[in-house]
């Protein structure tokens, strides 16, 4: 299995740095450009964070663009289970990070792309790996 075969998720920072074309994180913009090559799962927590970080018309446009890849981008508006959130809180996550982790575990997503080097770094036995955008692109190029 490669990064092209499994459902993965982008952390909110990937979308934000990518859409801003932030020069500190050029890999985020490239990942966003190449989103159609991947299978990307977008859980409620990330969607709502995007809604809070962007203007409504910008979110509408962004999701309109994503809709060009109906088989590649899966949007889930459902809340995740409290029991899973509590599990990650007990492991040391803040509520928000626990919600993201719970969404991923619930859906069996095994890869999260994030630029936040502290995100879940100290949580043992995560059911998914956390990759930076550059590492994800390297993996994409290796298997392409």
């Amino acid at each position, binding site marked *: 299995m490669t990064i092209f075969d499994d459902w993965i998720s982008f952390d*909110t920072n990937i979308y934000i740095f990518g859409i801003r074309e932030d020069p500190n994180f050029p890999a985020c913009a490239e990942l966003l450009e190449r989103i159609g090559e991947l299978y990307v799962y977008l859980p409620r927590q990330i969607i*709502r*964070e995007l809604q809070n970080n962007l203007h409504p018309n910008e979110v509408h*446009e962004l999701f*309109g*663009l994503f809709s*060009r890849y109906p088989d590649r981008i899966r949007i889930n508006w459902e809340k995740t289970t409290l029991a899973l959130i509590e599990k990650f809180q007990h492991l040391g996550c803040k*509520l928000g990070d626990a919600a993201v982790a719970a969404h991923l575990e619930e859906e069996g997503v095994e890869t999260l792309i994030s630029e936040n080097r502290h995100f879940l770094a100290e949580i043992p036995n995560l059911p998914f790996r956390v990759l930076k955008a550059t590492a994800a692109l390297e993996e994409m190029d290796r298997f392409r």
Partner: protein
Amino acid sequence: METLDLRVDEFAQEIASWESARQENLIQKLVDLNYRRGLKALSEKIQNRLITEGKFHQSVDEIFTELARVREVVAADDYLR
């Protein structure tokens, strides 16, 4: 305009004669190109808005701090109410 329509018709006829894998490849390329153009246009729109709001030169730390704040607010709204 009529000439252009005619050329489009001719082009479509030619594409329709291609094998389906080649047609699908062309359609996918069109989807990708349009997506990238749209994304670029949206990026520019958002960058202009950030410039207007004086947020374009926010530091990485400021952005991460704001993202972390929003994460907690959203999660609290969904799960603590």
